[in-house]
Structure formats: C-alpha cells, structure tokens
C-alpha cells in the first residue's frame, strides 16, 4: 500500500455569508490550500471527494459537479459523500484509500455547507434530519436533546459537574478569539454560559454549536511525490471509522460513542501509537458533552473522567492533550459537511507550525469527527514528516 501525504489544506472563513455561493466558499478554501504549495497544477487533481449534508436543500443532488466547476477541474471523477456531521472525514477517508491503492497520485477531499440563509422554521426542520425520524424526532426530540440525554446520564453515572462540561465552550471560545477564520471571536465566561437560555436541559445555548457557512479542503498525494510540492508534508499514519445504531435509545450505553471508540482503536493500531502519543487534537464538540465523551473515547483519560480532565486544564495548550485549538465546532463553527476536513486543517496547521494557538513542537495530532448523535465516526492520526 502507498503511504499518503497531505501537502496542503485550506479553509474558508466560517460564519454567515448570505452573499456567497457554495462555489465561492469552496474556491476560497482551495485558493488558500494552493497558496501554501509550489509546482502544483490543478490538472494534477485526479479525483474529488466532497462532504456535504446539503443542509437547506438548495443543492441536494450532484453537489460534486458544482464543486468541480468552482475550482475548474470539470471532467475528473467526483462525488458527494454524506454521513451527516462526519461527511468530510469520510470523504477524506475515501480519498486516502484512493491513493493507498495506487489508483490516484493526487486527490482532494473537502466539504462545503451553507446553513445561514434559511428561515428559522426551516432551520429547525433541517437540524433534525440526521437523527432517527420514526422514534426520536416524532416524539418531539431534538438534536441537542439527544446529546442532553448523554449529559444527564454522564452526570448521573460519574458525578460529572455541569460546570465542567460547559468549560469546553469557554475554552473553545478563547481559542476561536485568536482564529481569524472563526465564526465567534468573542470570549465567554463560565457564569454567562451556565445562565444562558435552556435549549435542552442540562444544555444551554452556549453548550451548542452554531449554524455555519463554510468550506474546507485537503490536498492529498502519494507520499513519494509530496516533496515536489512542499518541504513540510504531513502523513496520514492512522485512520479508523465506525458506525452505531441511528437512534440513541437503541445503543448499549449513553455515556460513550461506541463508533468513535472503534474508530480510535483502529486508528491507533494502524499508526502503532497510543493515546499518550497524541500531542494535539481536534474533537467533535457539536455540544459540550460531546467533547467530554471524546476525551474518554479517544483514550486521553479514563471513562468517566472527562469532566476532571478539563477541570485540571489537561485539554488546554500546556496540558496533556490540547484540544480544539482552532475553536472547535462550538466557536470556530460547524458547517456540517465541511467540519471534518476543517479539523484536519487545524491539525495540519499545528504540525506545520502555522497555528495561532501553536502547541510547541507538535509532531503527532488526531482529528475526531462524529456523524449524527454517534451513528458514524471517523478518526485520523497525522504525523509531521
């Protein structure tokens, strides 16, 4: 099997861009990515894998043709990959496979989503489309509500404090404040977040990620040719993915994302690494409790100790594993289909020493992306060359 390198990554600004199209956002991400490399011709791209939920339905079918058009690579094989909030990590996974197999020398993986230019009623409707419809949605359940079930149970089983769960939001806003591409560049206080309006008890509005417009891209190639384009290739050394029941109530436990545990085990095994080797991570904090579960599911701490992990500052820069230094889904933003590769973008920035919240000397990083309420998860471990 071929070794796979990331030669560059790019991301559009995340936020509300009612005046921009899918093509505009994706081209913005692409132009950043191509600005970091040399000797690169767009005609060298052999295949494109594009993540999107097509939130709002304004381009529900054949998104990939629109994206090929946006970066002028019409003609190559391209397809949209959909796995809810995990879409672009799965797009990335398939791009990696295409190079590992020797089929492609260069492929791109990315994602795009537009979520802001939609009426409030329609947004609420679209927000639930990736959950179980028959038994959850039609009981009056919401997406934040499902994560709230996990939070309630985690607090009950492990004595986790709500304050510690919400600390994830405070931390991620602090990192986003320094990220010029983040949706929210304001810091928040724990008191403010705890006392904000309730969305799904015990979660308040500050425990929840926003709706975001944005795009992301990674340019991947056969490691043998990576140095032609950059002096600092980053290698994909581990990857794993998993699935679970669509409906939360059917799972064995509400306090672990089994799909993410399977994904992380596979990724560590492939990379021949352990959780203690990870120096920086981006994890899927669609809701604050999801970040607590991610610490545990990735093995950064023991099951049930996620609250303690952030309480002690272990997920801050300077702690055991700095997490979401780009601001996370909570504050950088969560353009569903673009999120997974935007996490990989943050890790790539860390490993190539471009990050605004740089972790000194980081050589190995992990990106953890979850679809739905944990019905799919993909994890990638990246290593500086």
């Amino acid at each position: 099997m071929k070794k796979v390198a990331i030669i560059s990554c790019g991301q559009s600004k995340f936020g509300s861009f009612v005046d921009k199209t899918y093509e505009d956002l994706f081209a913005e991400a692409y132009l950043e990515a191509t600005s970091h490399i040399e000797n690169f011709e767009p005609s060298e791209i052999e295949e494109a894998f594009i993540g999107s939920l097509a939130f709002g339905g304004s381009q529900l079918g054949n998104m990939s043709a629109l994206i090929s058009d946006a970066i002028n690579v019409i003609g190559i094989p391209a397809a949209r990959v959909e796995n809810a909030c995990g879409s672009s990590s799965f797009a990335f996974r398939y791009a990696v496979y295409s190079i590992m197999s020797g089929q492609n020398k260069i492929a791109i993986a990315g994602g795009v989503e537009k979520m802001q230019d939609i009426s409030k009623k329609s947004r609420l409707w679209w927000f639930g489309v990736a959950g179980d419809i028959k038994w959850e949605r039609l009981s009056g359940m919401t997406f934040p509500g499902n994560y709230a079930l996990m939070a309630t149970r985690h607090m009950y089983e492990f004595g986790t404090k709500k304050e510690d769960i919400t600390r994830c939001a405070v931390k991620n806003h602090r990192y986003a404040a320094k990220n010029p591409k983040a949706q929210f560049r304001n810091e928040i206080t724990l008191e403010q977040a705890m006392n904000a309006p309730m969305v799904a008890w015990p979660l308040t509005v500050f425990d929840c990620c926003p709706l975001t417009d944005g795009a992301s891209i990674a340019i991947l190639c056969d490691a043998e040719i990576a140095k032609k384009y950059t002096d600092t290739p980053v290698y994909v050394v581990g990857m794993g993915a998993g699935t679970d029941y669509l409906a939360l109530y059917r799972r064995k436990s509400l306090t672990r994302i089994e799909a993410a545990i399977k994904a992380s085990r596979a990724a560590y095994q492939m990379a021949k690494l352990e959780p203690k080797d990870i120096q920086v991570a981006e994890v899927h904090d669609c809701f604050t409790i999801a970040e607590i579960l991610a610490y545990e599911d990735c093995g950064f701490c023991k099951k049930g100790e996620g609250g303690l992990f952030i309480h002690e500052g272990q997920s801050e820069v300077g702690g055991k594993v700095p997490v979401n230094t780009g601001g996370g889904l909570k504050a950088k933003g969560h353009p569903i289909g673009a999120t997974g590769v935007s996490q990989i973008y943050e890790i790539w920035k860390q490993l190539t020493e471009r990050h605004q919240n740089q972790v000194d000397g980081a050589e190995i990083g992990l990106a953890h992306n979850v679809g739905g309420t944990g019905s799919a998860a993909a994890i990638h471990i990246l290593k500086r060359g």
Partner: protein
Amino acid sequence: MAHVSVPSYWNALPQKYRLVAGKCKECGYVNFPPQILCNNCSKSNTQELIELPEVGTIYSYTIIGRGAAPPEFKKMQSKSGAYAIAVVELENDQKTKINVQLTDCDPFKIKIGTKVTAVFRIIYEQEGVRRYGLKFRPELKNPK
C-alpha cells in the same frame, strides 16, 4: 417548504398504540421495534410478536426549552411550555429501552429512576392530520 413526510404506514404502525416487539424464537432476544433480521443473532424471520409492559423507569432525560422544539411540535409547545423527553427502561427481563415524550408533569420534577406509565395522547398535527400515539406519565406525588 420541506417537512417530515407523513407516510400512511405511520398511522398503521402498531408501536404507536401498543409496545409491540419481536422476540426471536432462536435466541430469545427482544427486538424493539421488530426487525426482519434479529439484532442479536442475525437470523431472519424468527421473531414472534409480543407486547412489552407499558411501565418502566427513566434511564435518562432532557427538557426541551421553549422555542427549541422541532417545528412539528411548535403548536403543542406554545401550550405546554418546556417538555421532557426520556429514554425509558421498560419492566421486561431485558429492560428494553425506548425514547418517549413525558406528559402530565412539571418536567423539572422528574429524575433518573422515576417510574413512568404509558398513556394514549395526540402526538402532533401535520397537514391537518392528527397523529396519535403513546406518551409516558411519570408517577410523582405532586406532578404539576
């Protein structure tokens, strides 16, 4: 305007009115809802229909804040205010879990472990069609 479709089969689902599950004759596993392939042993067409007990205890819960309900439940919430959704463990041997809306209570009074009983209610109205089904009522000393 997109909306959750209301296929006819929905009103015909027995699970809307009774907790009909599929007990596998091969391995004894209770599948809720019934499946063609057993979730435990993967054998196909081996499930006999049984009714699960309509009582259980709250395994976990959340309270959907005012204005945060799905659009189908906006009208209901304008009357009820915040309402609770729970994963309930039923009182069968396997402790089968289901996801339900709780009713007839102040949602802030419930706890993990509170006993609940199924009741028949209107779930929501869409395109002029009323959807009926089961909600669960907590056993509380002062429910409101």
